[in-house]
């Protein structure tokens, strides 16, 4: 068994080198802006850039809207399918996985042809319409993650009994949804929200092709024109991803440790 352990550590070592060298390299590069010494000049330059703040804020708003409207779509659907239409669950699951099969660039290409300013629903004819289409495209992109997260959380609770109990106590549908179902699948909602946040903040294709001033296209623009700022931005982006994923793991671990309801 000794060789096995040595091989395992070799594998881990290769993994650690491969994963950490680019991160260290990026960090080191981001500090190199001032000649001859390490400084945080690149970060200063990034944070004082108005465009950074504007695009970051824009993507932040888009991410929040995506999460809110995405959850308003996903939670009732997942609930309804579990309660009333279990026979079509495979169909719904298949649809929610389609965004992983169809590349994002193909989906947005379809939008541009179908919803341009001379079409039956001219989403891209106005700024607010394009923003709405961007949010809808982000909901599509995050559908696989949101649906799975919510559906997994719903498996853990007995949807039917909860609903019947609420009905017997005289609750109407809005009350059942908002005060029984949502709080009980909160861990799933939060997991889905964090991963959606990470996806939307760095997303490039949709925003670039819909011509919206989001964070992803801004990153690309800086990358094409500056030397040290991109590395600083990569460090910031990695921190955002790390934060969202860290919160996700925290939520899922917390919900696993919570005592199961009798």
């Amino acid at each position: 068994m000794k060789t096995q352990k040595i091989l395992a550590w070799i594998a881990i070592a290769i993994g650690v080198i491969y994963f950490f060298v680019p991160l260290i390299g990026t960090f080191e590069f981001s500090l190199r802006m001032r000649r001859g010494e390490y400084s945080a000049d690149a970060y200063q330059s990034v944070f004082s850039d108005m465009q950074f703040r504007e695009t970051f804020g824009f993507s932040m708003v888009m991410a929040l809207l995506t999460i809110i409207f995405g959850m308003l779509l996903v939670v009732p659907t997942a609930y309804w399918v579990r309660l009333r239409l279990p026979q079509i669950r495979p169909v719904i699951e298949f649809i929610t996985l389609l965004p992983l099969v169809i590349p994002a660039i193909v989906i947005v290409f379809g939008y541009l042809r179908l919803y341009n300013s001379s079409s039956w629903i001219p989403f891209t004819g106005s700024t607010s319409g394009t923003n709405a289409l961007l949010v809808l495209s982000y909901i599509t992109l995050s559908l696989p993650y949101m649906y799975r997260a919510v559906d997994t959380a719903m498996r853990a609770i007995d949807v039917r009994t909860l609903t019947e109990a609420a009905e017997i106590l005289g609750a109407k549908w809005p009350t059942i949804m908002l005060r029984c179902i949502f709080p009980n699948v909160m861990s799933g909602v939060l997991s889905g929200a964090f991963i959606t946040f990470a996806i939307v903040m760095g997303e490039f294709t949709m925003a670039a092709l819909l011509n919206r001033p989001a964070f992803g296209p801004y990153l690309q623009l800086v990358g094409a024109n500056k030397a040290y700022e991109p590395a600083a931005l990569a460090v910031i982006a990695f921190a955002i991803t790390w934060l969202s994923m860290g919160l996700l793991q925290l939520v899922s671990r917390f919900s696993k440790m919570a005592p199961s309801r009798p």
Partner: protein
Amino acid sequence: MSAATTSFIDRRTVVDWLGIVPFMIFALMFLIIPTLYLVMGAFFTPDGQFTFRNIADLFTPSIISAYWISIKVSVASSLGGALIGFFLAWAIVLGGVPSWVRSGLLTFSGVASNFAGVPLAFAFLATLGRTGLVTVLLRDWLGFNLYSTGFNILSFFGLTITYMFFQIPLMVLILTPALDGMKKEWREASEILGASTWQYWRMVALPILWPSLMGTTLLLFANAFGAIATAYALTGSSLNIVPILLYAQIRGDVLHNANLGYALALGMIVITGISNLLYILLRMRAERWQK
């Protein structure tokens, strides 16, 4: 027959189906119809005549070479990712390493598999670019000039190792549960019957694992094939892969034929669709052993 049908479609059934109408409308409008529109468009001329011309035009040298480079990058990064990912998953499940290594690697994989797009390109440029950390250290410490060997981060090989940064973690995340599902009894039984470690892996473990291995590799392939942001930020439009060609086509009709653009998109859907379909079939096979 008719009585049975009318009683079947009662009010409650109608209400049941009404509940998923919002979702269905959303899926149709923002997922299915846009895709079908492109698929249909690939079979028509700009003035609405049915044709196979666009599909045939895909087989011109410049488009074929774009598909070929895309396929090569996707195959190389998925095989590399699968191989390293498998050994990492094996190491944390069966290698006897402390449990903090396992949880650490799994947490990190969750992050790294989502760290793609433009920032990933920046990270590799800062590491392996002409003035990147590794390039500089190799030059200053070992006197080894990486770029004189013909290496370039803005190339096929550079793109492949960059893609592996999100491919390896994805493999680890999907394969760890599969390796966890390998029962101890199988190992013990084969040892009692006198099998060596090699025989156990060749005759028991790998035949059970290969649907997972193959399936996940196909998933990684599709994952790399559809990716654009990393490649675009890394190489601009100097590396002619399919998503970048399609991006240029959407931006400025570089193919001078809108319907050929639809055919290009159709080609991407077919390739990612087939690999995902095979992945699903293989996963169903793999799950037989994990119950």
